[in-house]
């Protein structure tokens, strides 16, 4: 499908690692990925940096009192008072002693999923090159991810382990490993699917993401008109074929690289959109109404795609959706409930749809974001942070748990990078690795996709 072979050296180059060269892909054949059945990973990326401090709220009386006294303007009684919070009873609650946690009132769906054991919360996860302590951070004595606190770079590092300019994302690399072991034989084009423009997360060495609009696949209207008429006579058929070749840039052979790239995308677009549309010819019954929001539309499209996985012939898929507005420098007390409520509604609907189409145990949705935010406030908002708290949702999640150790509210604790920005306890690599393990990747596959993984302990589990 593609006429070139990009190199993998950028995987290592990004963070200046001096590690030994990792084994080539040919070497991992010895331990192939498990690709039987169907599994899907769905990344919901929250653009702007979601304030985890405002999502996993300290609930035991002393912690809550500390929280509200330090965040007064951001913790009004009406939305963050103990009376309205939704206290959690994690299955691993004994880990936290007398500390308790709650979700805000605007997240009833996530609370329900947590209680049902279908969602867990991963606390203080963020990009790391290797584990770092507070004193190491302050002394600058350990390698850190580059360009901390910069939106575009951190989005890139979350998705691809390298700042802006990165080319391969771990979602794409996971799909690569699955495809190499035989998944998606007749449906390689649908291994990775994005419902938002950004495709970095999903780009692998050998898999190219398919982008679909939030209202589903797009057909070219003028082409569809000719297609409806093509059976009439030879001229009509010829006209259709000619137009189809044009929109697929089929014969394009210009020298210019930019032109060739555009032609490739046009070609892929036409073929993939048509196949997708054909599979969607009988819209699946999802049995649930999705909120009419950007994220709702995206998750609906993803749910429909998963519903027709058999028709598409896909066995391992990685999806990417994104929604913005989380850069709450200002107006956080009014914006956060809306943002979180929207996220809650979309994820709840998605999970209900997965149950309806019998894919709940096969699909795992997880959130990610540029970074968490400062615990300190700036009047009516917060500023860029680092570690944040995230959700993992699905029937195969070892649910109802808080994974990791949420730092206490306030400052000067062991994970305080200053102003209550959190030094991550769990690295994105660790987070990704357990999702990848569940997806079917072998140890070597995971090492290849997550270059810093060897620096971290990988015994903790998110997934069953």
């Amino acid at each position, binding site marked *: 499908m593609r006429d070139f072979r990009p190199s993998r050296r950028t995987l290592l180059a990004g963070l200046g690692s001096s590690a030994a060269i990792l084994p080539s892909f040919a070497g991992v054949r010895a331990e192939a990925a498990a690709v039987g059945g169907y599994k899907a990973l769905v990344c919901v990326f929250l653009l702007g940096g979601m304030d985890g401090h405002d999502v996993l709220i300290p609930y035991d009386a002393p912690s809550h009192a500390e929280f509200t006294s330090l965040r007064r303007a951001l913790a009004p009684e009406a939305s963050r008072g103990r009376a309205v919070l939704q206290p959690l009873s994690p299955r691993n609650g004994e880990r936290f002693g007398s500390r308790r946690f709650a979700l805000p009132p605007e997240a009833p769906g996530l609370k329900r999923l947590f209680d049902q054991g279908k969602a867990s919360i991963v606390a203080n996860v963020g990009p790391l090159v290797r584990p770092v302590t507070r004193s190491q951070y302050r002394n600058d004595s350990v390698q850190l991810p580059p360009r901390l606190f910069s939106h575009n770079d951190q989005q890139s590092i979350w998705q691809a382990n390298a700042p802006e300019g990165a080319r391969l994302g771990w979602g794409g690399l996971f799909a690569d490993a699955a495809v190499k072991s035989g998944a998606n034989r007749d449906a390689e084009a649908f291994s990775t699917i994005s419902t938002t423009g950004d495709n970095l997360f999903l780009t692998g060495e050998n898999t190219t993401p398919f982008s679909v609009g939030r209202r589903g696949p797009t057909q070219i209207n003028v082409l569809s008109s000719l297609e409806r008429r093509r059976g009439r006579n030879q001229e009509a058929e010829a006209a259709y074929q000619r137009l189809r070749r044009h929109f697929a840039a089929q014969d394009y052979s210009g020298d210019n690289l930019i032109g060739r790239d555009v032609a490739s995308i046009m070609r892929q677009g036409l073929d993939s959109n048509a196949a997708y549309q054909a599979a969607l010819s009988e819209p699946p019954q999802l049995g649930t109404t999705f909120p009419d929001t950007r994220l709702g539309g995206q998750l609906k499209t993803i749910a429909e795609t998963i519903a027709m996985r058999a028709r598409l012939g896909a066995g391992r898929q990685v999806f990417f959706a994104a929604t913005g507005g989380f850069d709450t420098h200002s107006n956080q007390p009014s914006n956060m409930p809306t943002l979180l409520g929207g996220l809650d509604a979309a994820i709840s609907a998605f999970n209900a749809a997965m149950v309806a189409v019998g894919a709940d145990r096969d699909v795992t949705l997880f959130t990610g974001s540029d970074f968490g935010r400062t615990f300190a406030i700036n009047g*009516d908002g917060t500023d860029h942070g680092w570690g944040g708290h995230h959700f993992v949702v699905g029937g195969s999640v070892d649910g109802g748990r808080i994974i990791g150790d949420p730092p206490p509210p306030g400052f000067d604790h062991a994970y305080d990078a200053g102003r209550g920005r959190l030094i991550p306890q769990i690295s994105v690599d660790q987070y990704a690795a357990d999702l990848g393990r569940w997806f079917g990747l072998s140890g070597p596959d995971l090492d290849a996709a997550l270059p810093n993984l060897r620096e971290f302990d990988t015994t903790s589990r998110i997934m069953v």
Partner: protein
Amino acid sequence: MRDVSRSLCAAALMLFLVGCGASGPEAASEDGASGAPPSGPTGTIFSSREGVAVFMGQAAFGARPDDLDRWNGAIAEDWFEAQLTVPPSFMRPAFDIHMDRLTTDGFSGFRIASPTLIFWENAVGAPDQLRQRMAFALSQILVTSASTGTLNGTPEGMIYYQDLLIEHAFGNYRDLLHDVTYSPAMGYYLTYLGSKKADPDTGEMPDENYARELLQLFTIGVDDIDMQGRPTGAGELYDNDDITELAKVFTGFEYAFRARTGAERRERMQTPLVIDEDDHSPEAKSFLGLTIPAGTSPASAVEMTLDHLMDQPTMAPFLARQLIQRFVTSHPSPDYVGRVAQAFDTGRYQLPNMVSIGQGRKGDLAATIAAVLFDREARDIEASRANREFGKIREPVLRLAHWARAFEVDAGPTEYVFDLYNTSDTDRLAQHPHRAPSVFNFYRPGYVAPGTLTGDQNLTMPEMQLVSTATTPGYVNFVDNFILADRDDRDLERIEDRLRRFNVDLPAAPGVNAWVAEYGAELDLLDTPEALIDRLDLILTSGTMSEQTRTTLREYFAAEAEGDGPDTSRQVYVDRIQFGVLLVMTSPDYLIQR
């Protein structure tokens, strides 16, 4: 005053008059670009209509057909120098006219769309093309966005802001930074409006947003780079402490007055912000090697900050590279970047006709844009076409504007072009003027497209972020509504209904013709398909049409012509031309610009 040579005769001040500056061969060749344009003391001669087309695609929103004839054989510097003197088309007067037509003080989609409509009117029809193009480029660097929030609901803010970019387009970046900093739109968008000094009792700290993005996106960039835009390896220019210190400078900013009425709320979005000394941090502020002493007045602190940023060596290459990307090519050579950075840095640029542009103060935007457009790498078309890595993907907005100018669409009745009211979605243009999804614009200057040939060569290709399997069919569907539009398809009642819902007092009738292209010159060439294809190549693809697209057009025209007879209606021929235009505008040839 501007240091423009007075050897220009006065007539050159009127746009598109040829005669006074022109010299060189009278009969210019039309069969393709003929190497590097002759330049020297006489200037950069357009040696073919193609050369004019390429230049206008870079410096304007595309050539109109009469431009191609008028400027063929003339010198580009004359056009450029004239453009520097054309009065600016500000948005505010047009906005006031729009608002006069509203019949409600409450919500109206027309009110919200007004800045967009004015943008399109100017892009398609304003005489100050270069200034408008520069303002559009600046709006993608100094980003504010009306996609949501107050800037969406109160368009006065965006009108005022864009007029700043229009005003300073040929002025100085330092002055622009000042006005942007004091603009309500930026204060709102990057949230320093209302940011206060630190409060030790509550632990509240100043908002860091503007401090960070000012450095990262608007002035010096994250990484240390040399004058050619290449990373020096010295690493990041600032750390988080610089940000928290700098954040103290942007404290105390407030609206100029309290607003009690809707009218006052709108007025204050068009009035520079003021700084309340009580809310401004009294502490010393130390960042990037500068210390602003404690107790410095807020206004002085802002000026010292902006002066200090202007002094930083990375500003010139950081901005130069992005401006080249907006106008000419996505991955310029380091030498090209260096020459443009030099013009920004010295505030002067000498055009090939020996005329000096710029006031000599660092940050001169007229000198900078002159360097962008007149650099040999921009003007040597033969060399650039032989370079497989040269060029850029045509921004979606420019794809449509170019069409409108190429087919002489009347930009006047843009109010009726309801399709333009919201073009952000992937199934539309995937780009809406002044409504970027974030302060990071529609695409990143450093974007390298994963999984592509250009990406494999590590070429930065920003607009590729908007090219996907979702947006390419979306674009085709969106643009066919324009290309294939006929008066007969327009429904007067629907137009009336829309206007009523928007609470706009406008007659519906002009909506029937709005943005309908005539294709007169193309219809005249229907009997000579090769000539017709040549014309489409000239006005749409500046002579770069591939053999594949030519073949497709030939086959299409031939197949359609088979049924022609004496009774064939004019509409059939119009449809045929329209479809031919659609074919060109949906080919890779048109989607890239080089």
